[in-house]
């Protein structure tokens, strides 16, 4: 079991309100991703759950028990750190076994659990090595192995992939997702990368300045962002925000159009625009254009588009996928 519930959790550093009060429900077995720009308090929130920081107020309930005063180890959670935080003076085996030793498990039990974890993570051949002799991906696996053997109520991941190079990151992303599918344990994952959030999560928590902006399934956030911040943060390239007359005609202060929801034509369309930069990726083309009377926009077109600087094109936004926001940046839901 690993249901985590935050009730009005607050954290202040001196006079600084890092987290002014967060309410959140994480169900057992869920993969929850905290996402937000750097400094939004997502790591602090994770550390509060872990018990590495003391809360300034509120309750943290794990399976119904308030753990605010419990030490990190007593909370039954495992954490994977951004820097891996392996014990450099111990072998891989001892790194993974350390938590079990601290818990006073017998040698035979430790041996069995470590071998089992090493098997899952393809580390069996490296058990006698020190962390210094491992690659980045292997170190990350050891860190995960150390977390697994304790059989925790929930896993906490603090930006675990940001030290890896791009291709390895994609692999590890898949591995962690596969791990979640096989273990079915609650996972709380912190990242600033919305791609990781979208691909891994059952539930995404978007944070800004210590506040929860929106909680929801990835596609829910993508299709129905609650406000401009979430709309701009989820999705890549970023959503276009249009103000002024064009937005006014559609009963909104700001109109949000995702780059992938705009049809491109060289002959006719709703908005005339001039191409500034065309990024050709093969499978798709990113067009950075200046639309007449509107200003800069980004358009994502599938396939190859033989366009370049100064070319005139016409854009037609998909009318059913427009996002309307009021003057405060809140989404307008009524038609």
């Amino acid at each position, binding site marked *: 079991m690993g249901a985590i519930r935050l009730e009005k959790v607050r954290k202040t550093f001196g006079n600084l309100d890092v987290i002014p009060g967060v309410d959140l429900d994480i169900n057992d077995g869920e993969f929850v991703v905290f996402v937000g720009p750097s400094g939004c308090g997502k790591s602090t929130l994770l550390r509060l759950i872990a018990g*590495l920081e003391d809360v300034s107020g509120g309750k943290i309930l794990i399976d119904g028990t308030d753990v605010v005063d419990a030490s990190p*180890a007593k909370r039954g959670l495992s954490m994977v*750190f951004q820097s891996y935080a392996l014990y450099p003076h111990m072998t891989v085996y001892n790194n993974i076994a*350390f938590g079990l030793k*601290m818990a006073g498990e017998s040698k035979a039990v430790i041996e069995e659990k470590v071998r089992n974890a090493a098997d899952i993570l393809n580390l069996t051949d490296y058990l006698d090595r020190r962390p210094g002799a491992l690659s980045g991906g292997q170190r990350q696996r050891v860190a995960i192995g150390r977390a697994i053997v*304790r059989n925790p109520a929930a896993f906490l991941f603090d930006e675990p992939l940001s030290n890896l190079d791009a291709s390895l990151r994609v692999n590890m992303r898949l591995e962690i997702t596969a791990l979640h599918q096989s273990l079915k344990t609650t996972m709380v994952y912190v990242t600033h990368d919305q791609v990781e959030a979208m691909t891994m999560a059952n539930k995404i928590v978007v944070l800004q300045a210590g506040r929860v902006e929106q909680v929801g399934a990835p596609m829910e956030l993508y299709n129905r962002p609650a406000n401009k911040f979430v709309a701009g943060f989820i999705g890549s390239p970023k959503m276009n925000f249009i103000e002024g007359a064009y937005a006014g005609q559609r009963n909104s202060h700001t109109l949000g159009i995702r780059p992938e929801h705009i049809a491109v034509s060289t002959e006719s369309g709703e908005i005339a625009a001039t191409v500034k930069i065309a990024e050709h990726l093969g499978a798709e083309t990113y067009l950075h254009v200046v639309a007449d009377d509107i200003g800069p926009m980004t358009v994502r077109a599938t396939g190859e588009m033989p366009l370049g600087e100064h070319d005139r094109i016409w854009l037609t936004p998909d009318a059913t996928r427009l996002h309307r926001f009021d003057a405060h940046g809140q989404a307008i839901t009524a038609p």
Partner: protein
Amino acid sequence: MEKTFKSPLKHIAFSVFAWLVGLMIFFPIFWMVLTSFKSELDAISMPPMFFDFDWTLANYVEVQARSNYFKFAMNSVVLSVGSTLIGLVFAVTCAWAMAFSPTKRTKNALLWMLSTKMMPPVGVLVPIYLVFRDWGLLDNRFGIMMVLFLMNLPIMVWMLYTYFKEIPKDILEAARMDGATMPKEILFVLLPMAVPGIASTMLLNIILAWNEAFWTLNLTTSDAAPLTAFIASYSSPEGLFWAKLSAASTMAVAPILIIGWFSQKQLVRGLTFGAVK
């Protein structure tokens, strides 16, 4: 280092200069060792004799006969190692707290600790002497050990603090998540990672305590007297006996010189710690 100097001339000039400084520092020790093998007459002869004198071991025999070298040496070992071990217990915990749970005033506390080293010890000689007298700690190994331990504590804390600072906090937090209690966290995770820093801190403090002369001379006479007192006993009112004094000094510094020689690398690392990244 080879790449530091662009022209070979500069390189040579620097080498010559470095050797000169090195020889200047080494010369007194060299002269002391040399003198210890001379007769008292040769020792004070003018011009000084370098190698063309009658080599003799008489001074060593004489010194050995007059006073019990091993008793003093044993005291030196007990005092320097003992004060360092006690200091380590306090300094490790203190530096651990300062390095991993700092507050706004941690830096001030560190500076304040170090500032106590700026006071001349003689300034507190009388009060400490009186306290020692009243508590019966004069010429007592435990008493002098406490003084040496307290005297070197700021340096130990400072050295360990700069060392611990370089250990990522994440690793200790990982240990905490793994269920390590505070003593286990220090013992199984922090200390093994800090072995080089602790070794150099220990070595430096053993040397400092070994060579400490002010308090050992003032607070001990015979029972707890270390080698510093052994040397001092040869500069007597009846006159200086240079050769015997040199023999005594050579015997006093020999053990620490040998230890220092074999642990040069650790010592240099300890002394320059934090100076270069």
